[in-house]
């Protein structure tokens, strides 16, 4: 049985490195601010969020019918549709497709589902070389690290970190920290692999039942490149990614990138309805615990997630802890309500990595009640005996805290006896502009 991930301890290590901690905090907060500005440009923003939530709830509550509709349409379009109950079955399907054609090298674009399934090590153990085509994901691959953020996998690294890494792996100038130069180094070094690839793989942002289409959004163009440079395209999709129609797709496309980076749309927003002439396209519909989560009355709404990471960018704990501190595929507020469904004991501590300030819920484009689910998971952990005695005691003390805790000179909150709160990492670190009952604006200076 896995030991629980100690997120707080991991976060302390990250916090001790002030350069990375401050840089990450600044970057993510700037993304949050851009998200706010983008949302303000759209008069119907809140109506779109409501629609997105309702469309997802409609689809998930009729999921079996939409899965069957998608399967029929995708098959009619010429795709080969597979079903995978769990991560192992998914990985085996991918391997079998490649092995059948004697393919020993795969290019792939970023997909959190393939991270969840641990596909890359599975294939590499069987002699298949995998080259990530997303810049951030490739950086993490070269550094033997998992992604630290679901849309910016290497966002916790500075330009200096990348310059040093590329000099070790590609022989580039370790002192040239110019991001354009470094992106060029990656382009030069991965293009040869891409051009001679015999198979490419992508994930999917949305799957449209009506048209049997896969929709993928990237800024780099690397999903298209992974899908079409070779004659074999394999696409992995979580079953919750289905939406009913093109009409509903428009709602999500308007929300996704604005919520993620503050841009209006990604540079490449691509629809794959079937294989190109002379090529083969496989789609793997993956369950891996999703159908079980659908039956969790209190937690099924987390399946509405469109992976924009807005909740992560706004979360004071995530911004100060770094994504790797969660020790999990999905991190930040959305991660801590999803991961316990995969392995309850291992991720039993994650629901405590939150101030419960509600900002995550307020920025979520599909209106997942994230902070309420975090609280719900704490209760589940308590009911299941997953909370360590020390944490229980900490919660008891926190309950006894005065409503106006005093800051000590280090900025920690203190109780009336003057001793630092053992739950100081659970106290609100700052007031979030959109949090309920917290109308103040953020006062940090971000250049």
């Amino acid at each position, binding site marked *: 049985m896995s030991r629980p991930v100690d997120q707080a301890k991991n976060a302390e290590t990250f916090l001790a490195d002030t350069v990375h901690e401050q840089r990450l905090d600044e970057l993510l907060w700037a993304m949050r601010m851009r998200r706010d500005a983008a949302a303000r440009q759209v008069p119907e923003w809140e109506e779109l969020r409501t629609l997105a939530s309702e469309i997802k709830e409609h689809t998930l509550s009729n*999921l079996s019918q939409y899965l069957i509709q998608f399967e029929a349409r995708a098959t009619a379009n010429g795709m080969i549709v597979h*079903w995978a109950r769990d991560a192992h079955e998914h990985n085996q399907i991918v391997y079998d497709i490649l092995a059948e054609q004697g393919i020993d090298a795969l290019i792939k674009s970023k997909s959190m589902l393939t991270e969840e399934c641990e596909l890359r090590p599975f294939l590499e153990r069987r002699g298949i070389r995998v080259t990530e085509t997303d*810049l951030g994901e490739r950086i993490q691959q070269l550094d033997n690290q998992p992604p630290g953020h679901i849309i910016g996998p290497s966002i916790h690294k500075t330009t200096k970190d990348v310059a040093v890494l590329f000099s070790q792996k590609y022989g580039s100038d370790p002192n040239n920290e110019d*991001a354009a130069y470094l992106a060029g180094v990656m382009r030069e070094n991965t293009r040869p692999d891409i051009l001679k690839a015999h198979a490419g793989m992508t994930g999917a942002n949305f799957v449209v039942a009506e048209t049997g289409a896969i929709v993928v959004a990237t800024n*780099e163009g690397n999903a298209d490149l992974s899908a079409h440079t070779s004659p074999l395209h394999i696409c992995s999709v979580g079953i919750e990614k289905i939406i009913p129609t093109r009409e509903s797709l*428009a709602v999500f496309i308007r929300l996704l990138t604005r919520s993620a980076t503050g841009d209006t749309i990604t540079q490449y927003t691509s629809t794959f309805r079937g294989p190109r002439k002379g090529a083969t396209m496989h789609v793997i519909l993956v369950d891996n615990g999703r159908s*079980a989560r659908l039956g969790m*009355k209190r937690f099924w709404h987390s399946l509405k997630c469109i992976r924009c990471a807005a909740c992560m960018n706004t979360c004071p704990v995530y911004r100060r802890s770094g994504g790797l501190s969660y020790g999990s595929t999905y991190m930040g507020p959305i991660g801590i309500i999803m991961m316990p469904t995969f392995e309850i004991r291992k991720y039993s501590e994650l629901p405590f990595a939150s101030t419960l300030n509600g900002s995550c819920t307020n920025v979520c484009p599909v209106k997942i009640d994230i902070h309420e689910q975090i609280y719900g998971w704490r209760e589940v952990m308590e009911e299941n005996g997953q909370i360590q005695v020390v944490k229980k005691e900490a919660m008891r003390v926190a309950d006894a805290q005065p409503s106006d805790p005093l800051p000590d000179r280090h900025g920690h909150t203190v109780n009336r006896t003057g001793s630092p709160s053992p739950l100081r990492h659970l106290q609100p670190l700052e007031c979030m502009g959109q949090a309920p009952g917290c109308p103040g604006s953020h006062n940090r200076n971000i250049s």
Partner: protein
Amino acid sequence: MSSSQALSRNTILDSVRANQPAAQSMPTIPHFHTNNPTDLVATFCESIARMAGVVVTDHVPDLDSFLRTKFPNAKVICSAIPEYGGTTQPASLNHWSEASTIDVCILRSPMGVAETGSILLSDIELQVNTIAFLAHDLMVLLDTKQIVANIHDAYQHTYFNLRPYSVLMTGPSGSGDIGGIVVHPAQGVRSLTVLLSPAPDAGQRTG
């Protein structure tokens, strides 16, 4: 379908049926036209500029000299439009990876989107899909009459229901993955220039 695949399919669907919540209704989705910009062309130009795309609004009488001036070092100019020859055409490519040898490709898009500054391309215009991301630079002709207001309108285009591949392209490829600094290009095209130009024959391209 193999028996093991049939088992997996049935297991998943049975589990979904057993667990899915009580059916909730699908909302009616408006197109929000009351919030449309008054000048679609101006909005399109502003939107694509925000994504590092370039728009040429002046009339270009001679496409060849325009391309030679804008891309003086280009050797391989691929034309995917009938009114211009270039040095090569998509049909001449022997392999899809050969699109990486193209310096500039010139295409015509059937639709622009004012809200986002996107242009639509599909396998019809591209002929070789990899041109959309392996060619170095793209020059895309767009008739201003084919600019729609927003993404709701855009996804009504028949391509999304008919074509194997369609992409809304918005500026050149980019990435913010190194230190959060946005750079162009990433893995896709280095530049995207949209040249506003009336379609020579409205019935020329069909979708």
